[in-house]
């Protein structure tokens, strides 16, 4: 997967600082030492090295792409999101209430467990925030027995497919021209940690959630 090809067309993946990140990553691999210009880069590169150690040889572009989406986007959005930190005790789970109700109906309990993991991670990622209008997540059991998790925002669509052969399960995120024209998809259980992938995806969503709060 290559999200860093620049052509004479507008880049598809609008991840700021991607090229700089890539240089730092390459330097670590080649020299074994850091030369990160920023603390954030150093942290990301450090965790990438751990990831490589844990998982052995993996597709490097997929590894740093996941972390870039996670850490860099979160860092960029931090200044905007702090005002939404919740001061309430507990957490309103309205947006996932119906999805959890569907969980008990899923016939394949192995797949249902994976869906529950994803919902748990999403809820925990959003727990610090106090958005009033998070749209509902939907869970569907399709005719072939696979599970679709779908989350529709005004400008973004996020989804997960849990397949009968778990290793074929995946995710996608698409946004329109108002939210960066992002097109991202991949496998869920082939290398990157599930929490990392979801953290990345949520970070991309946060911007849209914040803008929705401003308008509504």
């Amino acid at each position, binding site marked *: 997967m290559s999200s860093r090809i620049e052509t004479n067309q507008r880049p598809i993946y609008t991840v700021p600082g991607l090229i700089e990140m890539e240089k730092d990553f390459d330097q670590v691999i080649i020299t074994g030492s850091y030369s990160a210009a920023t603390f954030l880069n150093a942290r990301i590169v450090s965790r990438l090295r751990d990831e490589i150690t844990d998982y052995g040889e993996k597709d490097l572009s997929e590894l740093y792409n996941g972390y870039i989406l996670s850490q860099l986007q979160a860092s960029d959005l931090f200044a905007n999101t702090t005002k939404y930190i919740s001061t309430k005790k507990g957490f309103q789970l309205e947006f996932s209430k119906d999805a959890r109700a569907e969980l008990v109906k899923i016939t394949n309990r192995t797949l249902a467990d994976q869906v529950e993991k994803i919902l748990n991670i999403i809820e925990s990622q959003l727990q610090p925030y106090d958005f009033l209008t998070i749209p509902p997540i939907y869970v569907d059991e399709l005719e072939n027995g696979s599970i679709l998790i779908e989350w529709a925002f005004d400008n973004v669509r996020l989804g997960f497919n849990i397949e009968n052969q778990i290793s074929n399960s*995946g995710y996608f995120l698409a946004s329109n021209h108002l939210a960066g024209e992002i097109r991202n998809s991949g496998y869920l259980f082939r290398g990157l940690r599930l929490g990392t992938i979801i953290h990345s995806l949520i970070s991309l969503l946060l911007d849209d959630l914040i803008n929705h709060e401003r308008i509504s």
Partner: protein
Amino acid sequence: MNEYPRACIRGIQKGSSIRSNNKASLKLFLPDDRTKKYRNDNGIETSINWEDNETVLDFTLNYKDDNNRLVFPNGAVRLSRDRIDSVITNTNVSNPVSYERDKLEDNPYHGNIVFRDGLAQHDINLICGTFALYCSKVHTRQSNS
């Protein structure tokens, strides 16, 4: 006619294809796996009507099966052909979809969005999610009358 119009119409058979928050689900655009066996290229199809003129939306909303039942009782949405072309050129897989005309005896506007053989499900979902993101609001027989 070989040229394609600016938009196509996708009829809504199942109510679950439109979510409770009135947003189109990606399920609305998922291709039918059963169509693979009828194609030489092993592609799978999402059925559409090409909006060749101003009557096609109405035609779709009122289209009936052999038992005189509405095929799309839940309405229809419009999808710009530009968006289909955008998916073809701006997705991380090569030529994931194409489109074609496929006239039927009782439907001269019929066509297909064809998903190529071998796509991973998450890529299919990405494409269908993109279509759902960009399609129009739902048109119903009531709103169109």
